[in-house]
């Protein structure tokens, strides 16, 4: 009994020879094609805005492996839409629909929504469920409240393997989910085939970022594994990549707090006793993952509006201003705080201002040990976040004027203090979002808050029970 998985990242543009890599993987055998495409790495912006970075990019990325899925009748499991709310899933689905029309493919797809109905959460709170924050972070209630729910623009949950297993078991050609635990996508088919949860989860962990687990840590490459009851063998189907004991073991470190123990829906994955061994065919065999059952929980994420941003970008070459840049920048911010025209607004509440000096401490902020600018030029960014876009743009323009023509000790640049690389000087950056919800929701049934519908692509959709 084994399951062969070919894995991609569906927002990562592939290597130019991806077709060759897919062909090689098909020679080894592929039982399921998996690609993850949701993340909270960007913060709450995409969840709040309902946008995604670029779904045309996703469509182009999907084309080669959905072609393989169509031609070889291989099931696929994809998470889509960056923040993975319904609004993102529907946009992504329309891109897959375009692909199907262009290529003449037909897919019967299980589409799993990750949106959490606010009323579901309210009912949980009223029933006494304690929904705790993952971290003690400013702006997050230690335990979820009804007002957190009300101020959220939308809320998603990271679905586990169970709803995907249900959809696969119903006989679909593929599954497309919203926000999901990455490894849940890889775990679903192995779990259906009876592979132990620890092995399935460890395989997912190594495969979830495609070729990042390979020797040159390249996300544009796919990765492949054959998973059985006691472990799995990872191989790279790419001509320009291999896997090594180190590259595979190292991937258990990637983007996670603790390389040996990780909390997942329904349990803790313990990798502390894992072994990684070379196989004669250039693969790495991984064994020893343990799964410790725990009560079933999912991470839920909600976004709220924090304000509207406008920025001004300056470049400086004049040595006298390089020495005085913080003093002049701070004086501009003081002007904004005390200008009569902004008197109706309260600093720190209705608007917040910052000057970022790249060339000094723009990257590390207070952790920067360098005392001042040591190079020959610097960039200065005024950053204004206000209660509305008009106020942010107005303040940014005033900041531009004051910094561009303001006086400072030793000033000789009386025709203009800095370069302006962009017009407009005040660049509206639009709404700013933060997390209103980043909490752990206990679930009696892993599929409870997630709804699945069955869609025939191209064309329409039919709701399944």
């Amino acid at each position, binding site marked *: 009994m084994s399951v062969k998985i070919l894995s991609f990242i569906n927002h990562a543009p592939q290597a130019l020879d991806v077709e060759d890599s897919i062909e090689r993987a098909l020679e080894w055998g592929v039982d399921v094609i998996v690609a993850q495409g949701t993340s909270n790495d*960007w913060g709450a912006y995409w969840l709040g805005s309902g946008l995604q970075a670029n779904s045309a990019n996703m469509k182009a990325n999907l084309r080669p492996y959905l072609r393989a899925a169509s031609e070889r009748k291989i099931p696929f499991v994809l998470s889509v839409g960056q923040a993975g709310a319904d609004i993102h899933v529907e946009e992504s689905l329309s891109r897959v629909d375009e692909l199907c029309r262009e290529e003449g493919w037909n897919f019967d797809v299980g589409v799993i929504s990750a949106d959490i109905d606010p009323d579901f959460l309210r009912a949980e709170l009223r029933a006494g469920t304690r929904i705790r924050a993952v971290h003690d972070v400013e702006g997050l209630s230690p335990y979820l409240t009804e007002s957190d729910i009300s101020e959220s623009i939308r809320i998603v949950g990271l679905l586990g393997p169970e709803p995907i297993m249900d959809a696969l078991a119903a006989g679909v050609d593929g599954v497309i989910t919203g926000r999901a635990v990455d490894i849940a996508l890889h775990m679903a088919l192995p779990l259906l085939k009876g592979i132990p949860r620890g092995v399935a989860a460890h395989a997912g962990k190594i495969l979830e970022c495609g070729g990042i687990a390979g020797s040159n840590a390249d996300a544009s490459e796919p990765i492949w594994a054959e998973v059985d009851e006691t472990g799995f063998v990872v191989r790279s189907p790419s001509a320009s990549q291999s896997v090594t004991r180190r590259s595979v073991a190292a991937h258990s*470190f990637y983007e996670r*707090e603790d*390389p040996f123990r990780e909390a997942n829906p329904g349990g803790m994955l313990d990798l502390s006793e894992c072994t990684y061994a070379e196989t004669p065919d250039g693969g790495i065999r991984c064994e020893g993952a343990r799964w410790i059952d725990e009560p079933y929980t999912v991470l839920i994420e909600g976004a709220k509006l924090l304000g509207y941003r406008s920025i001004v970008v300056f470049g400086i070459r004049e040595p006298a201003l390089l020495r005085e840049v913080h003093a002049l920048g701070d004086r501009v911010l003081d002007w904004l705080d005390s200008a009569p025209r902004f008197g109706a607004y309260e600093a720190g509440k209705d608007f917040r201002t910052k000057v970022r000096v790249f060339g000094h401490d723009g990257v590390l902020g207070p952790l920067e040990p360098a005392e001042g600018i040591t190079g020959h030029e610097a960039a200065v960014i005024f950053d204004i976040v206000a209660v509305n876009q008009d106020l942010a743009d107005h303040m940014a323009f005033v900041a531009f004027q004051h910094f561009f023509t303001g006086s400072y000790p030793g000033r000789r640049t009386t025709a203009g203090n800095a370069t302006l690389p962009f017009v407009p000087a005040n660049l509206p950056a639009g709404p700013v979002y933060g997390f209103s919800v980043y909490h752990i929701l206990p679930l009696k049934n892993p599929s409870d808050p997630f709804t699945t519908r069955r869609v025939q692509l191209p064309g329409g959709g039919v709701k399944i029970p």
Partner: protein
Amino acid sequence: MSKIQDMTAALRSKNAGPFMITVDLFFANEADFDAVRDSNVLSVANVAIAYRVLESGVVGPFWHRDALMAKVTVPKHSSCQDVFCNDIFGSQQHFPIAQLEV
């Protein structure tokens, strides 16, 4: 005295979720791995000072001699909850570790 910057083949930071930053150290050989581990430079106390966080917030350090890797994780001092977050992906926050003297 060498800095961690000079004793690692690769040194990277990244978000571990939006509210934590994790720093991975890759060593070129066992001697460098052992020297850094045994120096205790990555103690919870040193890491807490380097990132100006509470010792209780530091996760690790973790050592994986087979992979010649180490890791330590800290709360993100400027996360996406801060409208002026200075590193959305947390991908340049290795420096406070890089400059520690072994």
